[in-house]
């Protein structure tokens, strides 16, 4: 789950990491009041969970409260990457002399957290990482040991910082690591970490993403709904992983790996998958809800159910989706393929409840569903 910039900055501030003076505004009046309170030129920053806000006009500046009113009025109601702008972060405009990049993430190859520093931050950071990778310092962290200021000193000195800047940023980095660890974050990023003309060092932007697996123990965090289509949002609220695609064959399989392989198979057979929906783990009981959402996708031409029971029993899964289909009664061709634990019982359920003979070979089944989908 991602946090909004203003939420990330509240967390930074609570952990001793300096952020610009600012306030969140939901209306032009609130934006004006915030600008007045700050009493100098302000930045108005759209709060959306999108990547490239700056380039999309999501950050604008105002020198007076009156212009803040006008500009914020123009910003509210626009959208960035398809996401409506409902909140603005109104912040003092910084006089920045240098932009740094500082972040913590996990390195899937090294199987450990890494600290990342680049002496040139800002919007071009990925370009720098590509063209001048030597500039970026990546420092693996032993989780069982932690990341202290002295680790940061070593990393930042390699990145070229010296003297007071070195020790100040090292202190911030140690604090940022604690945020990363204590909040079960997958990612915390300050970009840019702004060295101001006053030589103060301030988190000018902030990004935090929390590990979904840890949300149940991170009780103090806000509950953000991640951006998505209306059906994706519905699925998210129901606790399901659902991604809408622009195809027309609805795919229901068990487990993420088999679901991905089934979509590939449909494509290889000339079909167009309409969705990714995972019903692995304990989600079989949610089959009804999952199918209801998946089948609500417009323009579907067929439904493909592909089950391979490994540690999950196929009869339990079949009970779930046949019950749901008997209730939802979609007027679509349905092709079912079943293999694995208790497969005979599962096939019998499908035959009884849906009047369908299940396939046992998924490739054969995939060819049939594609043929029937585009038959008319």
């Amino acid at each position, binding site marked *: 789950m991602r946090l909004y910039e203003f939420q990330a900055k509240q967390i930074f501030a609570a952990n001793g990491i300096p952020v610009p003076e600012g306030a969140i505004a939901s209306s032009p009046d609130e934006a004006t009041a915030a600008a007045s309170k700050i009493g100098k030129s302000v930045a108005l920053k759209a709060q959306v969970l999108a990547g490239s806000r700056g380039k999309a006009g999501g950050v604008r500046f105002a020198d007076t409260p009156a212009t803040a009113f006008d500009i914020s009025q123009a910003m509210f109601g626009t959208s960035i990457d398809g996401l409506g702008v409902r909140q603005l972060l109104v912040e003092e405009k910084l006089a920045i002399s240098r932009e740094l990049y500082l972040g913590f993430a996990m390195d899937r190859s090294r199987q450990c957290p890494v600290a990342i520093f680049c002496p040139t931050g800002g919007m071009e950071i990925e370009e720098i990482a590509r063209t001048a990778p030597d500039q970026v310092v990546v420092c693996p962290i032993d989780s069982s040991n932690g990341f202290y200021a002295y680790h940061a000193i070593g990393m930042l000195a390699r990145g070229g910082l010296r003297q007071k800047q070195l020790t100040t940023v090292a202190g911030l980095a140690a604090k940022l690591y604690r945020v990363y660890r204590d909040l079960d974050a997958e990612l915390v990023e300050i*970009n840019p970490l702004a060295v101001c003309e006053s030589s103060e060092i301030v988190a000018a932007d902030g990004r935090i993403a929390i590990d979904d*697996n840890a949300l149940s*123990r991170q009780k103090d965090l806000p509950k953000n709904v991640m951006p998505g289509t209306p059906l994706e949002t519905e699925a998210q609220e129901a606790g399901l992983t659902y991604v809408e695609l622009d195809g027309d064959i609805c795919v229901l399989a068990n487990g*993420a790996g*088999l679901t991905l392989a089934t979509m590939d*198979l449909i494509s290889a057979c000339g079909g167009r998958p309409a969705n990714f929906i995972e019903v692995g*783990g304990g989600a079989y009981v949610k089959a009804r809800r999952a199918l209801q959402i998946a089948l609500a996708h417009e323009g579907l031409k067929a439904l493909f159910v592909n089950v391979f029971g490994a540690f999950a029993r196929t009869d339990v899964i079949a009970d779930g989706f046949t019950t749901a289909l008997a209730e939802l009664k979609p007027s679509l061709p349905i092709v079912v393929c079943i293999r*694995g634990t208790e497969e005979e019982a599962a096939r019998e359920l499908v035959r009884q409840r849906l009047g369908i003979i299940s396939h046992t070979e998924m490739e054969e089944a995939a060819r049939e569903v594609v043929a029937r989908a585009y038959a008319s």
Partner: protein
Amino acid sequence: MFARKNDRVLVQGVTGKEGMYWLERMLQYGTNVVAGVTPGKGGDTALGVPVYDTVQAAVERGGVDVSVQFVPPLLAKEATFEAIEAGIKRIIVLADGVPVHDSMLMLAKARHQGAHILGPNCPGVVVPGETMVGILPCWLPHVFKPGTVGVVSRSGSLGTAICYQVVKAGFGQSEVIGIGGDPVVGTTTLDALRFYARDEKTRAVVMVGELGGTMEEDAAAFVPELGKPVIALIAGRMAPQGKRMGHAGAIIQGDRGSARSKIELLEASGAAVARTPDEVGVLLRRAMVG
């Protein structure tokens, strides 16, 4: 790699519903389960297996080679710490939903103590005809059969489906290792390839991967020195790219991580990459029979 016929197996969280179900399956398959652990149930037995309050007590009773855990994801870290501290060197973490910081801590601690972790979020391991430790349907004869093909899979259901293809193609498995689908896992595809390189019983390797992470890219570099045919299936060719983790993701991972990147590197390294599950069988026959 993770289990052999006579390995002494411990089941942590043995008396729960899942633990009991799979204990029965393992015992039926001939797995040498010597003890179980459930705090507060010390002194009981489960299907004839003695139950202890702590892993330490179970280990003191006579030694444990492998531990497998039926515990909720938020308790996996402590269960793993407990097993590591008791001196167990191979630990299978099945739980789905372990916070990644917990996983990283588990792995760091295991490294320091010389222990090996399989998982989290993995289905365990089968050596067909010998032993099964985990939650794999080892008893299905058209899926698991003794043979010479080493299988390594990030996905439980797809991996099992591919095992079925191996058998349908006329072969069996020397070992099936489910390494798990989490972003951070204790045993990687590369670790499994390294094992199969040394394993005399294994004549070919089937690698089941998927988009995300760089495990297949890391493994591809080893394919030439493996010295045995590798057939790979990478799921997610048609899937939308997974979420990017901020700039950090791009910095760490670069252009790697897509199914395309994995397939290109694997093919360049000499592996045969199947487009569909059925094709795995075709490529395997070609590699084994010629």
